[in-house]
């Protein structure tokens, strides 16, 4: 009997996970697992709730991306009550969602992931964190904290709450944007765009070149990808069709409403996390590293891979540089970080675009709504992947059935594969140290679970 290396908790991620690396008698990796250790069961406890209340209940699924759940849920309730939000209502929702992506990406890159790169994967664990960065690079840290704060405060100022928002409502939005608010948000977003461009340059020139080997190899696996695109095939985060890409680059587009015909979820007895797979490929499910079946990935790298182009100029330039260097689809797991920064540029540009549209300050923010029986399926691209909420209501407009596939879930199987790939290539003959185990965690952190 060999031993089990127990990395618990997996840190600098959102949630409860454990990595278990099983070694054989010679100290080589037999198998490795990422166990998801907690589950709350929102599908059950929104049963019986009036559907219009649900967007302010399910936001508590995730404290990092509450806007995503809030808005996917609002879209699902729109469907249940058969209402189309007003154009301004949609725009205000999209603006908040896109703006929430800004903070999320700053948080993940600088607070959660950067310690591995700025201080190094092998640096002592007691300093390998954002507090270590504050001490090592105080100017950078001060700027990062300030920018993230700016983004959060913009949302709070306009929408009341940045965490666990309430301003999105079935039929549209609860408050209009005044001209004064528009001007303030626009000015602040331009500051954030400057910071996004700085971050991209900083990472491309000062961070990634130091870690080319890790970026190419660590936890790298070969899978398909899932994201959202518009009718031109451009990257979309708020609305559009879903696009599944196979590892060979062939693509299938389908409407969100048909998600259950394309995707299924596999369950293993050793983790609370489900493992969605592409049922439509007709090959079943397998996490075998050499011949995976049905496995696709979501989140930044997936969206960057499935999009034909990005509609905003700076982000499109960055996409071209990325594609020139890594091809399409790019499979390197650590490239999630690079793709995340390209999206950071896009979301700043897109927020400005939305704020510059005249009708964003329109007064017609909410359509007439009548609770009724129906079914609604709403989706958005959350930072961590395609987020789907599917509700059915009774004649009182209360929930009788719900199904949700949340962003991180799509990457549960890929994360398991990346953990195994990293562990197998790094650990030989029982030789490992703390820095090396941290590299295994880095393969998980790239997915920002």
């Amino acid at each position: 009997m060999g031993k089990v290396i127990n990395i618990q908790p997996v840190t600098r991620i959102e949630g409860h996970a454990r990595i278990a690396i099983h070694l054989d008698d010679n100290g080589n990796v037999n198998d490795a697992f990422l166990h998801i250790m907690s589950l709350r069961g929102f599908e059950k406890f929104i049963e019986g709730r009036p559907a219009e209340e649900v967007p302010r209940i399910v936001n508590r699924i995730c404290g990092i991306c509450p806007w995503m759940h809030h808005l996917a849920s609002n879209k699902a309730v729109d469907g249940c009550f058969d209402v189309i939000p007003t154009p301004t209502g949609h725009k205000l929702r999209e603006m908040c969602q896109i703006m929430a992506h800004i903070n999320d990406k700053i948080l993940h890159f600088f607070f959660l992931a950067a310690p591995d790169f700025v201080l190094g994967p092998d640096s002592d664990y007691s300093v390998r964190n954002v507090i270590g960065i504050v001490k090592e690079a105080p100017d950078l840290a001060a700027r990062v904290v300030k920018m993230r704060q700016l983004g959060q405060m913009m949302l709070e100022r306009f929408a009341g709450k940045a965490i666990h928002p309430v301003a999105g409502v079935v039929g549209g939005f609860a408050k209009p944007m005044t001209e004064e608010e528009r001007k303030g948000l626009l000015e602040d977003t331009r500051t954030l765009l400057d910071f996004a461009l700085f971050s991209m340059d900083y990472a491309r020139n000062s961070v990634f070149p130091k870690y080319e080997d890790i970026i190419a190899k660590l936890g790298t696996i070969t899978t398909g990808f899932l994201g959202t695109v518009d009718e031109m095939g451009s990257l979309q985060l708020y609305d559009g069709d879903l696009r599944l890409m196979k590892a060979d680059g062939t693509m299938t587009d389908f409407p969100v409403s048909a998600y259950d015909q394309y995707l299924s979820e596999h369950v293993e007895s050793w983790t609370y996390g489900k493992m969605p797979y592409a049922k439509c490929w007709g090959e079943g499910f397998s996490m075998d590293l050499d011949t995976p079946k049905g496995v696709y990935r979501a989140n930044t790298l997936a969206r960057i891979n499935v999009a034909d182009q990005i509609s905003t100029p700076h982000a499109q330039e960055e996409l071209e540089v990325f594609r020139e260097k890594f091809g399409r689809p790019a499979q390197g797991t650590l490239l999630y970080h690079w793709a995340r920064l390209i999206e950071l540029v896009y979301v700043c540009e897109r927020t400005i675009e939305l704020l510059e549209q005249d009708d964003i300050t329109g007064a017609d923010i909410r359509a007439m709504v009548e609770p009724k029986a129906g079914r609604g399926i709403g989706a958005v691209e959350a930072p961590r992947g395609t987020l789907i909420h599917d509700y059915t209501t009774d004649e009182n407009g209360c929930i009788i059935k719900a199904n949700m596939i949340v962003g991180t879930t799509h990457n549960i199987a890929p994360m398991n594969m990346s953990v195994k790939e990293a562990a197998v290539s790094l650990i030989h003959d029982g030789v490992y140290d703390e820095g090396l185990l941290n590299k295994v965690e880095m393969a998980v952190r790239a997915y920002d679970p």
Partner: protein
Amino acid sequence: MAIRIAEEWLHSCSGCEIAILNTGEALLELLNKVNFVHIPILIDHKYYGQLGDGEELTIPEAEIGLISGGVANEEHIEVLLEMRKKCKVLIALGPCATHGGLPSLINLWGMEEGLKEYYSTPTTDICTVPDEIVPRPLDHVYAVDEKVEVDMLLPGCPPNPALIIEVLTALIEGRDPAIPAKSVCDTCPTQREGKGGVTKVRRFVQNAQYDPDKPIEEMRCLLEQGLLCMGPVTVAGCASGAGRGAPSCISARVPCRGCFGPVRREGNQMLDMMNALASNGIDYKSVVDRRSLLRFSGSHGLQRKLPVRKTTGE
């Protein structure tokens, strides 16, 4: 010596941890006085040693312990007991820790039903509920003080960053923190005109009436507009900054749903709200889903299992 802080999350969403980060530049200043020895969202301290070969779950000693989330499985209990053992002062952070929070809605059915439902959705392959390696669920969701003694409650979903800083600073300075004790209503600037003609509350499917170009002080109280607003039975503290301005949902022109928990620690937001409605001449039966008035505070045995007969709505 710097004050040591340990932070943990149990049956939670990470919103409390994001609220800690939302203290922003105040956090940078605080870092001169405190030393975070354990906080999984930010630092890499591991339960079983950095090489993953320890036998017992271990968290370092700390002067201050912060804990978010309720208690819903065996691992939560293990982590919570270790936190209690190692922290001199233990603070329950957010309503999940103080009163069960939103996940305590599952107490209408119990944890097992919640898991069964999740693993039998239409897109899920036929399976049984995972039961290897993963921690076994408890029967339902508990507040932290149902399992260990807690020294202080810091409310809010999420907690107000200004309040987090106030509590930590007060503890460092050795004084009592100023934690709001009034209700959301008591701190709400909207206009109340006294008992009006409202006899029923309506669902929030149409926006409140107000002039968006005028300040919040000129909007009429949402309860007086006939919207269910839980301001009367919810503890204050959500207003942005250090409590200036309007309660946060009200500032979005949306009624309160009680996310800071009851005004008194042992209050029952559902019963208190029914009383508040009755004393305003509003028919409590017009509330479509009474049980969800306890949506943020269902632990301590308040949110009880539904009768076996299937019901919807109330």
